[in-house]
């Protein structure tokens, strides 16, 4: 029996508008995902495929318009149970044509006020996020220590400043920052890239959230610290049962921590299922994008021979001019004559191709 989902995203759409193109940038275009309590969902995919925007939508942090325009985000713990996009419909009117959204009329101010109300007490406390760009997400004018201490006082039961400071030091040392008692008084500019990243991680973890969203938590870190941070996340999972949405380009980190994996391409989920099915190097039935992505990982042979690395042919998808058929069609090397027409004209939906394993590809269904 699977645990009940802690987070359940249904048909999320987050758009931006390009004035110069007079068109929508469909960054997240109908994403549905769920994470069971205590589990880790790994999210991989092309750069620009909408991973961070999905995460930021959950946090209610997508600024600018139109932003989130439809969907449901169910969040259920012992204490709370709500739709984080509650009343979104009251603020957004969509104009559909032929199954495509042609126009959006959104009362941005009203929605933001509503979202602020819904998210208060959730953001930072119940759901914490490790951002992709640590330097930009720390306040440059305050020491990392006071930022973490403040977060602890705000979001946990520890209110005493000295105790909170001790707690902050504890977390800085857990993320392997050297001399935490000294570093706690550093301003972000006095820290290296990887130290800022770890300070961010410490801040997110110190609030003891039920859901942790980690966007590229290990990129700026060397192999030894990377494995310590991965261990730390594994520990939190097994000891405290922290539920995690883990976004990463590092397949080895994803495969070590994830129970299930979602692969994103061009604002949609193209494959979704148990981690071992999706990341296995042998399994036949995989979405062609996933196979191509896994094949781009440099092998021992490439490195020894100093060969050219393998990259997926063709250009990244343009989320402004999304083609009519399968979004991967222009780059797909597995199109057969029997399905070519469908690939080109009709977008496949995400369907189960074996128990628990879903893919968005005409190779596996009609």
């Amino acid at each position, binding site marked *: 029996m699977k645990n009940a989902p802690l987070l359940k995203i249904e048909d999320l759409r987050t758009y931006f508008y*390009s004035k110069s193109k007079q068109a929508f940038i469909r960054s997240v275009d109908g994403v549905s995902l769920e994470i069971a309590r205590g589990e880790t969902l790994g999210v991989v995919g092309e*750069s620009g495929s909408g991973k961070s925007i999905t995460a930021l939508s959950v946090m209610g942090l997508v600024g600018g318009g139109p932003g989130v325009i439809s969907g449901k985000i169910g969040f259920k713990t012992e204490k709370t149970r709500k739709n984080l996009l509650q009343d979104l419909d009251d603020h957004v009117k969509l104009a559909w044509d032929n199954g495509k959204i042609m126009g959006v009329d959104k009362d941005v101010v009203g929605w933001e006020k509503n979202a602020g109300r819904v998210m208060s007490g959730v953001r930072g406390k119940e759901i914490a996020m490790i951002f992709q760009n640590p330097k930009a997400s720390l306040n440059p004018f305050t020491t990392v220590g006071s930022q973490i201490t403040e977060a602890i006082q705000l979001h946990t039961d520890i209110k005493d400043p000295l105790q909170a*400071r001790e707690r902050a030091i504890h977390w800085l040392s857990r993320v392997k920052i050297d001399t935490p*008692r000294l570093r706690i008084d550093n301003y972000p500019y006095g820290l*290296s890239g990887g130290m800022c990243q770890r300070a961010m991680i410490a801040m997110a973890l110190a609030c003891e959230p039920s859901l942790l969203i980690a966007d590229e938590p290990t990129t*700026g870190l060397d192999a030894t610290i990377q494995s310590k941070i991965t261990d730390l996340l594994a520990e939190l999972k097994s000891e405290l049962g922290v539920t995690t949405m883990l976004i990463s380009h590092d397949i080895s980190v994803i495969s070590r921590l994830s129970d299930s994996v979602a692969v994103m391409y061009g604002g949609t989920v193209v494959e979704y299922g148990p981690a071992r099915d999706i990341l296995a190097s042998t399994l036949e039935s995989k979405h062609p994008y996933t196979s191509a992505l896994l094949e781009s990982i*440099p092998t021992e042979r490439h*490195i020894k021979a*100093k060969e050219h690395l393998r990259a997926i042919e063709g*250009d990244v998808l343009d989320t402004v001019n999304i083609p009519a058929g399968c979004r991967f069609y222009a780059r797909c090397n597995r199109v057969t004559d029997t399905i070519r027409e469908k690939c080109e004209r009709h977008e496949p939906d995400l369907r189960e191709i074996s128990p628990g394993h879903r893919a968005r590809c005409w190779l596996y269904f009609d």
Partner: protein
Amino acid sequence: MPKTILEVTDLKKHFKHRKGLFSSFSEQERTIPAVDGVSFYLKENETVGLVGESGCGKTTIGRTILRLENPTSGRILFDGNDITAMPADQLRPLRGQMQMIFQDLDAALNPKMRIRDILKEAITVHHQASDEEVDRRIVELLEQVNLKKSKLSNFPHELSGGEKRRVGVARVLSVGARFIVADEPTSALDVSIQAQVVNLLRDLQQRLGLSYLFISHDLRVVELISHKVAVMYLGKIVEMGLSERIAHAPRHPYTHILWSSLVEKQSKEASRCTTRPHSGVWGVFDFERPQGGCRFAPRCPVYESKGKPVVCVDSASEPRLRDIGNGHQVACHFPL
């Protein structure tokens, strides 16, 4: 014989540690020896990889060499010119020849400028170019880094992490530098685009004879792209040599640990093991109580297994880089 383009001798950069306003910490000010006596050189058409723990001073070396920070002491020769203390006006003409791909995604991207203008500025800052030429160059650069033209009208905050990274790479390539400090140029990219960027950097090197100081935590990419690799630990180079040797026949205990954590990571990936890996020795260098001698001693398995020899922690005998043949240098009293 390729020409030496960069020569760094005994470079030091020490920072003052400034405390927060309400710090409970003692009053005395401390220095952080971020770079502490580093020497190496770089030839034309050559890539030197720089690896080491987060916070060991890699970015600081890059910034100091390009004179974005002033060195505390030491000497930097760029293309025969001593630029260690060169005043800004004399340095300006050299700036176009040395550039940095910044680790921080936002560092080089003016938030108030559209991507098109950022690239245009980079193309024209050191060279004259007509509007058509600029446009042609921009299209070419976008293709090289696989970025969509529709992103040209975006502001930096409207880009994903990887898109910013690619603009950063394109910006540096557009200046036409001969020497590039590439600080984590492949982080934030998916493996496929990573491969494109690595291939691009290598192609440009072959075509134009560029030199790179390539800083990265991705040891596989470092091994692939670098001719030589320098391994740093807390402000010092502890081992340097041909990349194959560093990767496959390391002599310094730290290098060994670093590369084996990569192997370990890969094997864990294969077995999908979720248990805790070996905890090993894990102490960190303490800036509050810097011990004498080798800075790696608190974590060194050799030091441990040899029964804590005094020579390793004696401040009179800090291990220095010495040649062990084949252009391989190591700073350790008991190399592997």
